[in-house]
């Protein structure tokens, strides 16, 4: 009689193979979500990133009106792709504040002239300080900020047409 315990190592090995095979077939999620959802924005006061829009400070995002906070940059290719969707959001009543990451005023001005300017304010974040403080790990990202300046939602990556109703919904929930 063969002792059943002889099969235990083989069974463990097959279990390991099964787990590995399962994990390999799962799509890789490279997004790092912010853990600042539900937390208030940090104190900041950023200079204007372009000549025709004011800069951005925490107090601007605490005036009782919920807003989108778009983290973008003129050097960011997916930011071009999401520009029409931001315009669509603005047309449907969203107030969009923005932070330009590591950007020169002339580059921001050229980007806005080429792809449209849906923003009410644009702050310049030259050392990615605000970006790090709100747990954003890249551009573009879009946060929903409620009227008290609390972060309510984070969208990672460029906004697609299908994301527009989701963001409008989150904005309405932040009232």
């Amino acid at each position, binding site marked *: 009689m063969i002792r059943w315990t002889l099969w235990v190592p083989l069974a463990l090995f097959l279990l390991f193979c099964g787990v590995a095979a399962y994990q390999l077939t799962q799509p890789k999620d490279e997004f790092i979500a*912010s853990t600042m959802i539900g937390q208030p924005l940090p104190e900041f006061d950023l200079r204007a990133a372009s000549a025709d829009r004011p800069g951005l400070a925490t107090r601007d995002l605490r005036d009782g009106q919920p807003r989108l906070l778009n983290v973008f940059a003129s050097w960011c290719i997916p930011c071009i792709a999401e520009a029409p969707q931001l315009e669509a959001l603005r047309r449907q009543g969203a107030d969009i504040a923005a932070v330009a990451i590591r*950007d020169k005023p002339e580059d921001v001005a050229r980007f806005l002239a080429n792809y449209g300017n849906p923003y009410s304010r644009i702050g310049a974040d030259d050392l*990615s300080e605000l970006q790090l*403080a709100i747990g954003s*790990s890249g551009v573009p990202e879009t946060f929903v900020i409620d009227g008290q300046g609390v972060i309510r939602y984070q969208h990672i990556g460029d906004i697609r047409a299908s994301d527009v109703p989701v963001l409008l919904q989150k904005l309405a929930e932040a009232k």
Partner: protein
Amino acid sequence: MMLSKCLFAAMSVFLAAAAIPALAQDSMPPAPYAYNQLADPEQEAKAQDLMETLRCLKCQSQSIADSDAPMAGDMRHQVRSRIAQGEEPEAIRAWLVARYGDYVSYAPTVSETTWPLFAVPLLLVLLAAIILWRRLRARS
């Protein structure tokens, strides 16, 4: 000889492909402390130790000490300027973990999700010791 030529060709293709995203880089100069060390060697050593255990968010297999991504440079600037202001390395790590989760830190911690990583090896060693002990006792 042929092999090394092939390898070289493959490397050049890879490097050319890797260079494409570099077009999507900003034109700003690096942050003051991205590539400059702190004047105080003791503080710099503290900063260096911490930077080697913080994960680059743009290039997730590298520490911020190893990465040339602009965002990693800005993170090094954060680390060095905070250390220069007298902040403790672990406080800076905690600040980042509060924003990005455990993901940002390479330093292993025992938590609700990671405890099996620490417990399983101990259990296996214990199991091996028991088996060994029983065998040796049976033999003698």
